[in-house]
């Protein structure tokens, strides 16, 4: 899975938000916010194609967290990405 090309991360104050670029414009409507973990996954999937297992492996290296919790997080996040049509 991979994030579509036309989505970018912007910083508003201290918040990370995802906005689409459509019709040549950065469209600040219906924007969604990411915490640090979600930002890491978003940036990873923005730059390369990965499946859930590869993503889990990467997150286990980066975060000192329980594997089942990370798996749950990845599943939730992928579902949200799918719901918002952010995946290729």
């Amino acid at each position: 899975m991979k994030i579509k090309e036309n989505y970018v991360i912007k910083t508003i104050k201290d918040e990370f938000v995802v906005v689409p670029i459509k019709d040549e414009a950065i469209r600040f409507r219906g924007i969604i916010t990411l915490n640090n973990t979600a930002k890491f996954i978003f940036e990873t999937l923005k730059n390369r194609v990965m499946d859930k297992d590869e993503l889990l492996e990467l997150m286990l290296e980066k975060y000192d967290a329980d594997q089942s919790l990370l798996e749950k997080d990845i599943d939730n996040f992928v579902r949200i990405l799918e719901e918002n049509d952010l995946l290729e």
Partner: protein
Amino acid sequence: MICLSKLVVSNQDFFETIIEDLKKGDKVSFLVKGNSMKPFLLDGLTEVFLMKKDDYLVGDICLFKYRDNYILHRLIKQHKSHFIFRGDNSVFSETVHEEDIYAYVYQYQSDEEMVSTASPEYLKRVRKYLAKRRTYLFLRRLIRGNKR
């Protein structure tokens, strides 16, 4: 724990981010808040598309800073380095310096229809509306003056 939710930010923070992009030469869009530009731009319904340009012209709807607020109003007069703006649905005007103007609306979307602010149809509609508005404001001043 992953969080992905709707974000509520202050106008100040929101526009600072947008202005940063505009200064880089990017085009941006956002939903209009408020009814001061009625009937052309409607609260929560109209999406405006902005970009910067070198020379702002009378009639342009511009994003500018006035008394620490970010405002989207129409340029109604230019006098040397001063630019005078007023909302199409407003009574009061704002005088600002050129450095406080960030961009202008080159198109907007309402009811699924994309309107170019350079189109003859739009310009004709604006001229007609502003002429009516000027008459209204003139009569308003006259009536208020007579009451005093």
